[in-house]
């Protein structure tokens, strides 16, 4: 079906992130969805990603074929065979969504563990930790030079780099090989840090966008930031919306949450960007006029403890449940129980989670400050700061079954139109335009 797209023969060096099941957010989901769709369109992909050094690995570069056991590598996309994709993992503690401060802590922790492990095993065959830089931007550069080493031995036509930590690697490979570079903006420093941008990160992002032949933004919302905040010429920046993987599994799972209770779900990283505070303030207002509502915050992040405290301070602690980070089946389970999914993001470049919620028949309320609100009509929308209106809409969804039903039916139908294959086709078209230009 995809063979008529002209993607055949093309080879992409994809500088990406985590694959299922090791996923902490939308970035991994997007890399997976896009790569899988490209595979189906007969595009060859060499997928490079950073991995923490594991005990059994002794070399920096570990080759993983699609045939390797999923449980061990965690790199294979679920049960799906990827015919045209090769994986290359590079030992590095780089992790999606890290901030420089978090990174420092994480490396220190890792080094300590490695040392303990080495002491325990009585030898020094465990390597890696010592090689890491304690500084994030240095590590990003170290990663870049390792990717260059790897790229010399790979055959590809285009380089496609996802989010800022891989941009220096992309720029370096492009410089050495002369191959065109596409950078894909899933989020910007302004989304992650508001106005308190980290200058180092900003500079890396900007350099990547400037050096790239084309910039892909996940929404017009993000494209606007790329143009206005990074000064990138508008004609170079294209919008390619994310898709959603259809799940279609249905399993009713009993849990301790009683069904005479309504459940409102926040699912995502609990960070400033995701607006947990607005969710809780809206929850308070909902509980002022309605009983029997439970608010679930599924996820973890640097705002988690402050959120727990805020819930207590608002006097709604007993009505808010913090589940921590959920994965796999647990995510499906919580969707099955939810009456409404709320994404109150302060700044959300795209936001795949609402699409997954709709795919699981859960109506969604999303902030207008999100890229996904550009593609969803059958969703409730609100300004993230307008907690009164957010509460108004939450109450309406919980109170009126016809509203839930209409949102669910239309939303589920609408979400089917957002397919990764279309996103992949758009990327392939961009590659081809660049290759013609070269």
């Amino acid at each position: 079906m995809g063979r008529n797209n002209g993607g055949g023969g093309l080879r992409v060096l994809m500088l990406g992130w985590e694959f299922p099941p090791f996923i902490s957010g939308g970035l991994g989901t997007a890399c997976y969805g896009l790569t899988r769709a490209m595979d189906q369109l007969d595009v060859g992909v060499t997928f490079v990603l950073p991995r923490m050094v594991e005990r059994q690995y002794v070399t920096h570069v570990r080759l993983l074929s699609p045939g390797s056991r999923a449980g061990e590598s965690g790199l294979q996309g679920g049960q799906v065979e990827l015919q045209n994709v090769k994986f290359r993992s590079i030992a590095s503690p780089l992790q999606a969504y890290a901030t420089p401060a978090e990174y420092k802590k994480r490396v220190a922790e890792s080094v300590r563990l490695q040392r303990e492990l080495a002491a325990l095993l009585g030898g020094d065959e465990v390597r890696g930790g010592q090689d890491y830089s304690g500084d994030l931007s240095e590590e990003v550069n170290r990663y870049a030079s390792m990717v260059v080493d790897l790229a010399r031995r790979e055959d590809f036509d285009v380089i496609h780099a996802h989010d800022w930590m891989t941009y220096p690697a992309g720029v370096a490979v492009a410089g050495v090989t002369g191959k065109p570079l596409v950078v894909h903006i899933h989020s910007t420093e302004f989304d992650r840090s508001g106005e308190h941008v980290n200058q180092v990160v900003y500079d890396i992002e900007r350099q990547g966008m400037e050096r790239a032949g084309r910039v892909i933004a996940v929404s017009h919302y993000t494209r606007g930031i790329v143009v206005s905040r990074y000064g990138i010429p508008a004609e170079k920046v294209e919008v390619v919306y994310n898709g959603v993987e259809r799940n279609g599994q249905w399993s009713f799972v009993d849990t301790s949450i009683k069904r005479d209770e309504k459940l409102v779900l926040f699912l995502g990283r609990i960070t400033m960007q995701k607006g947990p505070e607005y969710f809780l303030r809206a929850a308070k207002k909902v509980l002022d006029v309605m009983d029997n509502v439970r608010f679930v915050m599924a996820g973890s992040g640097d705002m988690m403890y402050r959120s727990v405290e805020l819930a207590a301070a608002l006097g709604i602690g007993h009505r808010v449940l913090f589940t921590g980070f959920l994965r796999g089946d647990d995510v499906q389970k919580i969707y099955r129980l939810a009456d409404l999914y709320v994404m109150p993001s302060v700044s959300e470049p795209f936001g795949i989670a609402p699409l997954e919620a709709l795919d699981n028949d859960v109506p969604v309320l999303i902030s207008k400050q999100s890229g996904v609100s550009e593609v969803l009509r059958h969703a409730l929308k609100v300004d993230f700061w307008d907690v009164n209106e957010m509460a108004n809409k939450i109450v309406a969804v919980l109170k009126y079954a016809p509203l839930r039903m209409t949102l669910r039916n239309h939303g589920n139908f609408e979400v089917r139109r957002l397919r990764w294959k279309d996103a992949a086709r758009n990327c392939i078209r961009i590659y081809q335009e660049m290759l013609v230009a070269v």
Partner: protein
Amino acid sequence: MPSVCFYFQVHQPMRLRHYTVFDKDERYFDESKNAAICKKVAQKCYLPANRLLLKLINQHRGRFKVAYSLTGVLLEQLERYSPEVLSTFHALAETGCVEFLAETYYHSLSFLYSRREFIEQVRKHVAAIECLFGQTPTVFRNTELIYNNDLALLVEAMGCFDAIITEGADHILGGRSPNFLYRPKGCRHTKLLLKNYTLSDDIAFRFSNRDWTEWPLTAGKFGQWVSAVNGSGNVVNLFMDYETFGEHQWEDTGIFEFMRHLPDEVLKHPDNDFMTPSEVAGAYESVGEVDVPEVISWADTERDLSAWLGNAMQSGAIHELYRLEKKIKRANDERLLDDWRRLQISDHFYYMCTKYFSDGDVHKYFNPYDSPYDSYINFMNVLDHLQSRCRRRAVQDAAGGESAKRHAAQMSATS
């Protein structure tokens, strides 16, 4: 000898204000928005169109005639926000060449939900027209030309109408022409005037469409199309929204110029004339029976109710609304009754329609809401408050004078 029969629908809804679940007052309607829209449409459409038609009627000395259906909620708003429009309608009424039709005062879907309420609203509308224009309507048209056999029977049983106007939908005519009068199935004397939707929509929808092969449409060309009906029909019913002039078709499309020349072009042919709906009903006999078991309307290509009642929100909201009828009427409170009835304005349900929304054709109709969901939530919040007023009334009535005071005292003591 076709008679050209113009009828213009004139209506403006009363839009709700943004009303959340936290709002507790009885101000449901957006006075400033309604005033602004009413004044804007008055300037762009009602005033220039009324003045033009008045001029044409005077010029043609009784040979050019038109009919209007002015909803009660429009009349109230004109009185409040644009009284000069009302005075031009008075002037039109005094020419003797203008007929006013009857409909439900609140432009409601009440026929589908409560016969009793339907009859009350029609009576209220007739009374308003009599009071304002000194003439008693004898032709009935239902909201959005919603119609079926039962409606015809009910209207005939009311005993004050000679004819009903509805859509000349293909499937009810079965190949017959809309350019004749018909008899509704089961009725004895009532006549049916059917909209010639092709010629009506040429003016109302296609007039400014440059992709249309007949663009530009001139009065001369249209006059020829009307004359072509000669020998194959008695009447050409041109029914449309009045906002066609200046609002749906902007002035710069030439729509007023078209209308300015149309009477001349139609009357060029000696067999043609203009008639009002009641004159048509008096002049021609029914040529056959029309059987409409299922409900039809003039909306969209479907000609059905899906624009108002097509999704679960729409039917849920309207059911909840009409379920209150007994309580509202028992309360014997004019303000409560009027608020309830204003919530019946069909536009409230139209705004909740998801079918255009899915196509991305959001601007098909002026809609004050960003989405059908917002409109439903807003409506339900208002309805919820209206229900609470009903309950309060019921409690007061049950308790009666002295004990009500005691109850109020108790309530304030416990809170």
